[in-house]
C-alpha cells in the first residue's frame, strides 16, 4: 500500500503534508500507532481519489477533510469509550487573565490584531497550529472532537464519560488558552 503513495506522481506533495496530518491525528487520537494508521489510510485514499482532487481547494484542506473521516471511523472501530482524566489542569493561566471583579486584567491583556495581508494570514495558521499543540492532551482531544470532527456536545461528553457541563468548561478554557497563545503570536505576524 505504501508503494502506491511513493510511486504516485504527487508523492512529494503528499509527503510534504504528512507531518501536519500526523500532528493533527496525534492530537486527536493520543496514540502514535493509531495516528500513523489513519494518516496512512488518508494518503492511500488521496492517491486512489486523486482524479477527484481538482485543485479547487488547497491540498492540505482536502487531505484534512479525508483525515477527519478516517479519525471518525477509527473512533467507531474502537467501540470503547475512554474516560479522560481532566482534573489536574492548572487554572493559573486563566485566573491571571481576569481581575477579581471579572474584568480583563489590563496587565496581562494583549490587544494585538492579526494583520490582514495574505502572508500574515498564512503565518497566522502556523501560529494557531503551534498553539493547538500547547493545549494539554485531553483538552486537545475534546476540543478537536468538537471543532474538527464536528461532534455534538452530548456525543463528545458521552465519548469522554464526562458531563456536558464539564465539557463546556473544558471547551471554554481551551478557547481562552488558544486566544491567549495566538494573540501573542500575532505580534510576530
Amino acid at each position: 500500500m505504501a508503494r502506491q503513495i511513493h510511486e504516485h506522481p504527487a508523492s512529494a506533495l503528499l509527503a510534504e503534508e504528512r507531518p501536519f496530518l500526523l500532528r493533527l491525528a496525534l492530537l486527536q487520537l493520543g496514540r502514535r500507532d493509531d495516528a500513523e494508521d489513519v494518516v496512512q489510510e488518508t494518503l492511500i485514499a488521496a492517491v486512489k481519489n486523486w482524479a477527484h482532487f481538482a485543485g479547487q481547494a488547497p491540498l492540505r484542506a482536502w487531505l484534512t477533510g479525508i483525515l477527519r473521516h478516517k479519525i471518525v471511523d477509527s473512533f467507531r472501530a474502537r467501540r470503547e469509550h475512554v474516560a479522560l482524566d481532566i482534573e489536574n489542569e492548572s487554572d493559573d493561566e486563566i485566573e491571571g487573565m481576569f481581575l477579581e471583579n471579572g474584568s480583563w486584567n489590563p496587565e496581562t491583556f494583549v490587544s494585538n490584531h492579526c494583520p490582514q495581508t495574505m502572508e500574515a494570514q498564512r503565518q497566522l495558521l502556523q501560529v494557531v497550529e503551534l498553539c493547538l499543540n500547547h493545549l494539554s492532551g485531553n483538552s486537545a482531544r475534546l476540543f478537536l472532537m468538537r471543532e474538527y470532527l464536528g461532534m455534538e456536545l452530548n456525543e463528545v461528553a458521552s465519548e469522554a464519560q464526562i458531563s456536558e457541563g464539564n465539557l463546556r468548561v473544558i471547551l471554554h478554557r481551551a478557547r481562552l488558552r488558544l486566544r491567549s497563545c495566538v494573540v501573542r503570536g500575532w505580534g510576530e505576524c
Partner: protein
Amino acid sequence: MENLPEDRPITCRDTTWLVSAARDGELDEAGHAALQKHIADCPFCRDASQQFTDLFRSLDLLLANDRPK
C-alpha cells in the same frame, strides 16, 4: 444561555462564556443581546471579541471546516 447572572451586569469573564457558547451554537437571543450590550461599552471585550472571531476563522481554515457549528 443558562446561568446568565440576574442580579448584576455581566462581566468580561462572563462574556467569554457567551462567546464560547455562541461558537457551540448554544447562545439564545438574551445571551446575544447581553454580549452585544457589554461589547458596546467595553473596549477590552471589543478587542477580545474580534480576536476570537479571527481565531475561529483561522481554526475553520486550518481544520478545513465548511459546515456551520
